[in-house]
């Protein structure tokens, strides 16, 4: 049976270019990628389309109730929080903003459970604020691998800094090296 690998990425300001750089380096992989970008409903489909043009794997907005499939990239739509039921089924929920944002990276990452098979990887990239820090702490606690973008390559070193300050980050890297690390971990 194929391993079910999952990579969850949290990102905010400076995200579209950083994601383009990261996914431009990645070949098709045996992992589902879920991106939580702080974004509005007026912009989500535009970003998905832009990333789809740059990535080797197909990119789409995540749809409520769908099951993640390896080799695909899912972008959380604006205006909802995204949880993953059993690390695999998308649940879009309304409700209060968390860390002033919706979707919130913490909400998605904190919905994850210990992987039964395959790898779980959490990544926090450039962005204002501290969303994703508690999520990274949680992913580490349930046995995942954690990565934060480095200061030099970050458009805004807010979210990656907060993640790194939890002490729960395994690797601090620029986008191209994050891509190489993912190939190493999932290859």
């Amino acid at each position, binding site marked *: 049976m194929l391993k079910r690998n999952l990579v969850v990425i949290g990102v*905010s*300001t*400076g*995200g*579209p*270019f950083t994601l*383009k750089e990261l996914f431009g380096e990645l070949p098709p992989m045996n992992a589902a990628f879920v991106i939580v970008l*702080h*974004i*509005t409903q*007026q*912009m989500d*489909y*535009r*970003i*998905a*389309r*832009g*990333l*789809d043009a740059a990535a080797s794997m*197909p*990119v*789409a*907005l995540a749809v409520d109730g769908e099951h993640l499939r390896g080799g695909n990239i899912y972008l959380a739509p*604006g205006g909802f929080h995204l949880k993953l039921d059993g690390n695999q089924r998308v649940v879009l929920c309304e409700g209060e*903003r968390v860390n*002033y*944002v*919706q979707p919130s990276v913490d909400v998605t990452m904190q919905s994850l459970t210990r992987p039964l098979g395959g790898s779980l990887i959490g990544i926090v990239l450039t*962005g*204002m*604020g501290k969303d994703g820090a508690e999520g990274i702490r949680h992913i580490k606690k349930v046995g995942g691998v954690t990565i934060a973008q480095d200061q030099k390559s970050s*458009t*805004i*070193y*807010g979210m990656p800094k907060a993640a790194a300050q939890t002490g729960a980050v395994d690797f601090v890297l620029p986008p191209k090296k994050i891509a190489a690390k993912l190939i190493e971990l999932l290859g």
Partner: protein
Amino acid sequence: MNHNKIMIVDDNEYVRASVEIICQSVQLDITCAAGGEECLSHLESGFRGVILMDIMMPEMDGWDTIREIVGRGLYDGNIIVMLTGMGEPDAKMDGVQEYVTDYMTKPFGPDQLIESLQYYLTLLNVTSGAHA
């Protein structure tokens, strides 16, 4: 509607002039605003495109201008890029993250500015029916 418009919102006339020259060098349609009120007035008149927004401006700063843009229902169809000399944003950005797509630190190179603007214009020209 085809988007190819840029707006620079900055109280510093030299910054406005630099961005204007860079945009004109690649035939991008550029609109200048010396402050938040002028930016809002262009938006009320129908401007839609990429907005380069300075943070530190007298009277209405960049964050307050964004809140006003959203409050008046003028955000849809625009991409906002903060343009600033500050190293890190302050707490006033809380709650507007979702509306700020990128952040460029001054001074910036013309090539970097043009590459960003052209990419964001590409995204604005994606229609809602063309989901990835």
